[in-house]
């Protein structure tokens, strides 16, 4: 029997899985290199999580402060990442981001402007100079719409609302993917010379998250089960400011742009607690008082940043401390106040609505809070994973030939902690690189036959939940996992709790094998949730094991039992791989020393 009898089979040179910023940028580049390119979206085209990015895209264009250049951006990124970053990626990123942003303008993006008619840039945590090109607080929407509208005229094959269940391999190389369409539940095979993963992150492994239902670690898990190495999975970013009330929107993102525009954090005593603790690495880069902080926000080149604009890991931990020590807000957060700027500037209300329009509407509509006059209640929310598929810094190819990764699903650029705004630039820079190199790889790849046994086995696994209509509710298993990860592998971690988490994950694996669903295959969210469980459990295990293995606190990882940085631990990344027996193997992979010229840059910027 031929494949065509059971599957809808399509042929492509490059297959891009994921249609957010990285996926679309990769697909555009691959197509520009003459490769027949397909994009698979889990949702409708243009709905990917990139639309949620608010603050801006970091690129050292120097439009607002001409002291900015790629060297400063590079050293900011390395410092923010606790020096665990892949130096090659950090260099490419800092050097290439400006060109990638300007290219968006040529494709129709309409950025906010400076007074002299250039792309406007704003302040953000951890960036020394105003560096984030933006459109109000909806930069991600602008980016995805620009890429989408440009991309559809580049001859891409777009597969909307389809989910990939497994990567297909032959002789250790990736040769395509199999999955299904949500609309009818038909099984599909995409044959391809190269595959680019651009599936985003893992936020749905936690209860409180800014991420949507799509963020179930699909790419990390697909790569892992296809034999690729993951890296830095212990580093999960908790964004300091998510909404905390009402309960139904708990975790929803409140952009760092609020602080970039002058918003301050206060505890229940009205104290600006961020002044209370300044990390060693930043002690020369923080305002000495509120006055200097405000001057920085206003663009005074001689002022240092207010402490609210320190890196996300640090701000999240300070907020966490205030809440735990009983100085929180009524609903278990702290106060974020932007309305106070009326003491400093005329027309503050109109200014806030203009600069932060979606924040204004979000709070007005969902919480009944007018942010121009009242403080917001905010608290940490799971936002981003720095770890992911280990890739080559130049080509974005993983340890499995033919398999590439770009954007959040890839590891390396951000090290132990990502700076705000570096994600949108990451998508563009490494989407472009992955697209180019995937196209080149595909051109020289020979066509291999699909292993029908592998295909049959994966299909069987995908359809199994239907055979257990009385099986356990997949939503309940997902929810139990989210609660455990939230409680046991969150912002503050200990060995004891993480060992407990591993135990829970083991039990949930058993339960997920018994998950069942009712109904039929057409647009059945219960089925989709059941299939997401393997991905969520795989990444949760990788996060927990890696976090246990890193016996120090650095960047996004804070260990209560190892509260400081260790020199020993600064020498390696933790790599995760599926062993021959199917169990998860961990390894310390030594970091190569900084190239002399890059080391000199880092030294100079200290």
């Amino acid at each position, binding site marked *: 029997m031929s494949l065509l009898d059971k599957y809808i089979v399509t042929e492509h040179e490059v297959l891009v899985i994921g249609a957010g910023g990285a996926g679309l940028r990769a697909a555009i580049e691959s197509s520009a290199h003459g490769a027949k390119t397909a994009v698979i979206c889990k949702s409708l085209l243009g709905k990917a999580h990139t639309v*949620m990015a608010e603050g801006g895209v970091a690129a050292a264009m120097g439009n607002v402060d001409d002291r900015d250049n790629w060297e400063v951006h590079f050293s900011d990124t390395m410092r923010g990442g606790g020096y665990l970053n892949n130096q090659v990626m950090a260099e490419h990123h800092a050097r290439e981001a400006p060109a990638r942003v300007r290219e968006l303008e040529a494709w*129709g993006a*309409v950025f906010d402007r400076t007074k002299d008619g*250039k792309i406007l840039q704003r302040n953000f945590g951890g960036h020394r100079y105003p560096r984030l090109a933006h459109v109000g607080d909806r930069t991600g929407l*602008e980016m995805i719409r620009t890429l989408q509208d440009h991309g*559809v005229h580049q001859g891409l094959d777009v597969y909307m609302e389809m989910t990939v269940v497994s990567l297909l391999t032959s002789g250790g190389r990736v040769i395509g993917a199999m999955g299904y369409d949500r609309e009818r539940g038909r099984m599909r095979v995409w044959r391809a010379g190269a595959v680019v993963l651009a599936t985003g992150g893992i936020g749905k492994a936690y209860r409180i998250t800014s991420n949507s239902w799509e963020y179930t670690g699909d790419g990390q898990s697909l790569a892992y089960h296809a034999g690729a190495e993951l890296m830095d999975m212990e580093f999960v970013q908790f964004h300091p400011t998510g909404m905390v009330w009402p309960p*139904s929107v708990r975790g929803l993102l409140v952009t760092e742009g609020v602080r970039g525009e002058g918003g301050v954090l206060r505890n229940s005593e009205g104290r600006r607690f961020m002044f209370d603790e300044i990390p060693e690495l930043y002690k020369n880069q923080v305002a000495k008082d509120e006055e200097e902080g405000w001057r920085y926000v206003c663009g005074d080149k001689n002022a240092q940043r207010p402490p609210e604009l320190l890196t996300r890991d640090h701000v999240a931990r300070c907020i966490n401390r205030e809440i735990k020590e009983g100085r929180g807000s009524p609903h278990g957060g702290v106060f974020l106040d932007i309305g106070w700027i009326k003491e400093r500037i005329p027309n503050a209300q109109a200014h806030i609505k203009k600069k932060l329009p979606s924040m204004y509407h979000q709070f007005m*509509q969902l919480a009944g809070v007018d942010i121009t006059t009242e403080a917001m209640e905010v608290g940490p929310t799971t936002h981003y994973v720095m770890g992911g598929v280990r890739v080559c810094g130049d080509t974005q190819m993983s340890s499995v030939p033919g398999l590439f990764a770009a954007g959040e699903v890839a590891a390396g650029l951000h090290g132990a902690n990502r700076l705000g705004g570096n994600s949108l630039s990451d998508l563009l820079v490494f989407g472009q690189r992955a697209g180019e190199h995937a196209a080149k790889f595909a051109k020289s790849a020979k066509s291999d036959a699909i292993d029908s046994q592998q295909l049959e086995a994966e299909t069987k696994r995908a359809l199994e939940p239907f055979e257990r209509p009385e099986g356990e509710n997949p939503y309940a298993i997902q929810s139990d996992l989210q609660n455990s990860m939230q409680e046991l592998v969150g912002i503050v971690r200990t060995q004891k709790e993480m060992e407990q988490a591993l135990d829970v994950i083991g039990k949930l694996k058993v339960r997920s094998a018994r998950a069942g669903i009712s109904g039929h295959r057409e*647009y059945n969210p219960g089925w989709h949730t059941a299939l997401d469980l393997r991905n969520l459990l795989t990444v949760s295990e990788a996060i927990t094991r890696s976090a246990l293995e890193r016996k120090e606190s650095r960047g996004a990882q804070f260990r209560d039992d190892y509260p400081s940085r260790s020199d020993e631990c600064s020498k390696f990344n933790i790599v995760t791989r599926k062993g021959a027996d199917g169990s998860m193997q961990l390894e310390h992979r030594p970091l190569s020393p900084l190239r002399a010229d890059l080391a000199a840059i880092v030294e100079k910027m200290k």
Partner: protein
Amino acid sequence: MQGGGFKDYSVEVTDGMVVLDCIHKIQAEQAPDLACRWNCKAGKCGSCSAEINGKPALMCMTRMETLPPGEPVMVEPMQTFPIIRDLVTDVSWNYEVKKKIKPFKPRKPDNADGTWTVFQEDVERSQEFRKCIECFLCQDVCHVLRDHHKHDEFIGPRFLVFTAALEMNPLDTENRLADLKDRDGIGYCNITKCCTKVCPEHITITDNAIIPLKERVVDEFYDPLTMLFRVFRARS
């Protein structure tokens, strides 16, 4: 879908819940296969469009407190598009329409480094239209599409806004006026402003996008002065 109909679910509502929360609760506890689209749950992606008590709206931005207490909440799929299942409709027509609109074509860069010099006041109009999250609620409410099914002759408010964003982009050099008049059917819009009322992004669709485009089309093709001018020149 054949033979669809309403089914009653009872959900306990707590502080601040939105309609989408209730749908999720139904999925998790009563009907795991209940189909709906959603992504961001923050009014930014435009996936969870539906009709709530007959009014087109995003489920994620409709708070339960704003609905009449004690009465059942009617949640229906958008009526202008074919139903796939439950609350999910086939919106692919929109993607086909968009593909046909002539893409952005910028003028040559103003500066040697490939950049343009453009001022904030020049981009503001275009930026208003680019706030669109493509929820298609304006398409859903538009009577030309909803009641008269002119999908083959009229591109609908969403794509008039999209065209306006391109036409009013200071860098763009393309001309889409002939397409607007003939293929896109801008004349079908009789400015009832229903689209503006349902827009979750508060884009003033009719006043700022459609009417100026109508005026440009009229100026280009129907200006009586222009016609008169042609008469004078047509000497044989």
